């Protein structure tokens, strides 16, 4: 299995690669967590 292009989503981590560095966040997970808890 191979994926073409830069890493952007891995094990729930969102990875954003930029010229100045790399940004790792779990924004989607956070949003889903907030949606899931009532």
């Amino acid at each position: 299995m191979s994926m073409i292009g830069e890493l952007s989503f891995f094990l729930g981590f969102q990875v954003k690669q930029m010229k100045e560095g790399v940004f790792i966040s779990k924004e989607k997970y956070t949003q889903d967590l907030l949606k899931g808890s009532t």
Partner: protein
Amino acid sequence: MMDCKPIKTPMASNGHLDFDEGGNPVDKTLYRSMIGSLLYLTASRPDIMFSVCMCARYQAMTMESHLIAVKRILWYLKYTPYLGLWYPKGARFQLVGYSDSDYAGCRIDRKSTSRGCHFLGRSLVSWMSKKQNSVALSTAEVEYIVDGACCAQILDKKQTLLDYEVVLDKVPLLCDNESAIKLANNLVQHTRTKHIDICHHFLRDHVAKGDISLENVGTENQLTDIFTKPLDEARFCMLRNELNVLDLSNFTRK
């Protein structure tokens, strides 16, 4: 939770929890599942590490006040959903450790909380916040135990870096307690420290070998406060930025 009010810190600055024996019991399963989801999030959010760990201690006897504390963390997440770790390019490649502790921070058993974080250049690579296993008699003793734990972490990182042929010597470990530094550098047995278990003295051994070097850092530059204390908003945001936990929208706007 989508329409809750956003809040700027995950914990009130006087937010220490206790057993709250007279409180209303709440559903433990719900509480545990909330803690579980939040613990997973701490892998990319060191800013909520302390508050989540504090709430996680009360999973056996859950009261309403504990649930309210967890909800406050969710409110905070609502305010800051875009935060993540920023790893800048081109910083100096140097391993630095920070260690500190909160003496007798736990209201119930008076045990202290250790905290530490490690940077590689400007990038945060590991962090911890842990209640110590035994009650300590002095701040120096607490710090000494924390420094030992951080020393073990640093040795682990050094070993990993060695595989990439990066050899580091005298890795600085910054702590703000002078007595702990003196204790680690000087092999004199002193009445106040005789009882410290031998396993903690391995710090001293590694300082003597030159694997790490303990250095003093002022309280205001101590980045690990965020892992053991509830803080006010200004200091909390300052430390969060120092740890390179930033908002993605700041970058995309540039």
